[in-house]
């Protein structure tokens, strides 16, 4: 049983670190504010939540605090990304390589 919990914690830490690395690579390499938001939204959800799952599994002492932090992150991360994308669109930052803009037609009509 001890071995299984340690193995789960190891897998969770490795996958969470890979999500963090991919998010920062996306922050540097992607061409646009909106696509960068798509990349960095993954770090707050999958990266930190997987690290917290490993922590909670390995040390059951902080179970309730860890679960409260997971719930806070799962509510707050998408809300932050949505607020930033809405602010970028309303302050008129252009989209690169965009083919069509449905929101503009909807606002004008």
């Amino acid at each position, binding site marked *: 049983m001890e071995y299984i919990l*340690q193995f789960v914690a190891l897998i969770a830490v*490795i996958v969470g670190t890979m999500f963090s690395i991919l998010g920062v690579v996306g922050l540097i390499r992607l061409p646009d504010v909106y696509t960068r938001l798509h990349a960095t939204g993954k770090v707050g959800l999958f*990266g930190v939540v997987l690290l917290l799952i490993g922590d909670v599994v*390995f040390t059951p002492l*902080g179970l309730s605090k860890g679960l409260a*932090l997971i719930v806070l992150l799962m509510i707050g991360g998408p809300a*932050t990304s949505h607020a930033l994308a809405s602010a970028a669109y309303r*302050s008129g930052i252009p989209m690169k390589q965009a083919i069509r803009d449905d929101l503009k037609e909807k606002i004008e009509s």
Partner: protein
Amino acid sequence: MIETVLIYTLNLSLAIHIALIAVCVWRVGRGENLIDRLIGLDMTATLILAVLVLVSFISQDVIYIDIALALAALGFIGTIALARYIADQEMF
């Protein structure tokens, strides 16, 4: 044996996250526009949260989870208030 592997993996992950924080701070300085820098600040707060969780994991101490909880709430409020200020020129 797997415990040794886990300890090495945790220390390596801590080093990787600290390097990623340095990259995000560089990105805040060299961003293209205001929203881009704000994304870099939000990312820095999230990665500091990950570092606190990893330190709590390594030292087997629950007090760092409390600090991470407060940092998550404050970063959430601060980023949303700044985004609303940039969009509408008023904060509340």
